[in-house]
């Protein structure tokens, strides 16, 4: 049994809270949020100990592990508070905004023997795991071309008052949406050597990107990333990956994996040359508690067991999430380079600059926590 606390009661925080409270090996010792109203309701109806101050919760409730589900720009400070007390950390994605800080935090965790994990839940989706297993078996050989996509209905009108509508606080399609397919690509193909052709496009938002496109270059191939969170033709978020290799093609989303194997391929057990389809139903085991997808339960379960066995390295540890943060930062920088395009004769390449990240982190932080999606 481990003592766990949760900080941040937005959509992700509430759902983590519900799942961890139901976990047979976890004991919930405290909940922290800036919104007193929600805390009071939780305290009144569920009896949980509530705090408005993180430091106080960490000292008084003395959890062995915390789940951080606050706006992205608040992650780093909270993680440091936990690390200072030797507390293991599960943190929502993306890890932090500055990739140098991700690396530093990963090193710090390593040095102190702290278990860390970031909420890239797609790595716990049966179909996406199967992709990784097939790649490791070399089923389609070297991946030469790849396409990673994420679409969904998040920002569908100009107004926006939460932390997600500010770049400085970790908002934007790149941080929020593209992070998922990028994380899958770093899992499948490793870190790219370079990125090019990056474009961050605003559709409805004034200060942030609503769509992302970029090319990632690897020693033996390339991957395209396209993400758009202003796409209401999708009922909910969908993440897809397509990989073309020398011996075939793999396409996967949350529900299924479709694999085409050329007859030159070394065919894995249970597969055949030509088309193969596997469904979530075959690739997923029922978790101890289901709230909104097996993967969300599975990732918390993995974290609990890693904390119990002090397994510093594991799926989605800070070191692995730092790689994704680096790619995000590369795309962000590439999108602002004025010399990066070959212009058609008689034309000048148009670069749309995004609003710069604001320096007053403290003020925005406070505002976001008060009025944000908490």
């Amino acid at each position, binding site marked *: 049994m481990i003592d766990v606390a949760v900080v941040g*009661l*937005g*959509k992700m925080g*509430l*759902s983590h*809270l*519900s*799942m961890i*409270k*139901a976990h047979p090996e976890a004991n919930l010792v405290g909940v922290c949020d800036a*919104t007193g*109203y*929600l805390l*009071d*309701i*939780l305290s*009144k*109806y*569920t*009896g*949980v100990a509530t705090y408005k101050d993180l430091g106080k919760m960490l000292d008084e409730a003395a959890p062995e592990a915390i789940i951080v589900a606050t706006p992205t720009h608040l992650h780093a400070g909270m993680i440091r508070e936990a690390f200072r007390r030797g507390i293991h950390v599960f943190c929502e994605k993306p890890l932090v905004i500055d990739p140098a800080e991700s690396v530093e935090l990963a090193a710090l965790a390593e040095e102190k023997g702290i278990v860390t994990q970031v909420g890239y839940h797609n790595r716990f989706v049966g179909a996406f795991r199967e992709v990784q297993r097939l790649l490791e078996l070399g089923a389609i050989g070297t991946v030469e071309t790849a396409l990673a996509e994420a679409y969904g*209905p*998040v920002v569908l009108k100009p107004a*926006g*008052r*939460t932390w*997600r509508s500010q770049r400085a606080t970790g908002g934007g399609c790149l941080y929020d949406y593209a992070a998922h397919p990028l994380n899958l690509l770093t899992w499948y193909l490793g870190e790219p050597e370079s990125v090019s052709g990056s474009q961050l496009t605003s559709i409805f938002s004034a200060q942030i990107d609503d769509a992302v496109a970029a090319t990632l270059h690897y020693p033996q191939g390339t991957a395209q990333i396209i993400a758009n969170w202003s796409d209401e033709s999708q*009922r*909910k978020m*969908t993440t*897809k990956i397509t990989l073309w290799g020398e011996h075939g093609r793999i396409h996967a*989303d*949350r*529900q*299924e994996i479709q694999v085409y194997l050329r007859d030159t391929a070394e065919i894995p057990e249970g597969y055949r040359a030509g088309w193969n389809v596997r*469904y*979530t*139903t*075959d690739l997923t085991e*029922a*978790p*101890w*508690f*289901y*709230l*909104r997808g*097996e993967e969300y339960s599975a990732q918390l379960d993995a974290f609990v067991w890693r904390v119990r066995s002090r397994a510093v390295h594991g799926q989605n540890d800070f070191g692995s999430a730092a790689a994704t943060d680096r790619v995000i930062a590369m795309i962000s920088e590439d999108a602002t380079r004025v010399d990066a395009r070959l212009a058609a004769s008689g034309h000048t390449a148009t670069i749309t600059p995004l609003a710069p990240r604001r320096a007053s982190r403290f003020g925005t932080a406070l505002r976001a926590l008060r*009025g*944000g*999606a*908490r």
Partner: protein
Amino acid sequence: MTLITPSTRTMDRLLFGDNQFFGVNHMSEEKARAQQMRFQDTDAIMSVLDAAYDEGVHTFMCTTHDRIGEIADRVRADPDRYDQMTFFPCMPYAHKYANAVTDDGFLGAVRRFLPEEGLLDSIARGASSFARKDIEGVATLLIDAELKMFSGLATPVIWLQNVIVDLLSGLGFTDAFRIFANHVRKRYNAEPGFITMNLPRLLDDLDRAGVENPIVCSNINKLGFRMSGGVGSYLDAMQKRPFRAVAMSVFASGAISPREAIEWVTALPNLESIVFGASSRANIASTVSLVDEYWPEH
């Protein structure tokens, strides 16, 4: 132990679900999109509902999606055609709230869905309970707002949808189940139903909340697909616990053949109803005939 026999049955054996109309498919995003395209006109939904009705499936278990409001209007407009039509609404329509939480925060979302105008009673109920941090007033107002589209129609069972049920169950917020059950019984003279992906756990919660012999809908299929706690614990609950079981996902999204699925599920003790979805009259008819074969109504 409650034994379900034809004489104690108050729900139909087959309930018609609405996932297929709104692009919910647990197997394939492609199929889900094709269904969304096919059913974007209400006429297309209505013609499948008519087919189900004419096959003798008179209960429509549906979300409180805006488009269900259009269906309700059509049924109200033709009482002769639909004299046996019954709705089992499932609330809330979760995506509506999830998107609102992203936009406005948790409290902002609650405020957005509270009625802006209306009876003095609801204003008083909302404002004072909001201030007292008493969820009862706010919750009952939200329930009323969701059910407005069914006014004048038969809604003998009203469901609380699984993401909310399981969220509350995980949080240990069991008072909410009692509040829901009381309100639905008192104000709508309906039976409360609870949809869950965690059946054994929820039965414990409902015991604690004092909801007796509850109607509970959960995945029940031969494969154990999305049956948290395992098939064994579900079967054990069906044998020993006093509740009225409704099975969903009996075909495990198509992974089990219809005959095998129906034969297995109808042999279980204390099953009261099966909720299923289909997009064609042929599939509806085939499910009806399998149920007649394995689970005859005397």
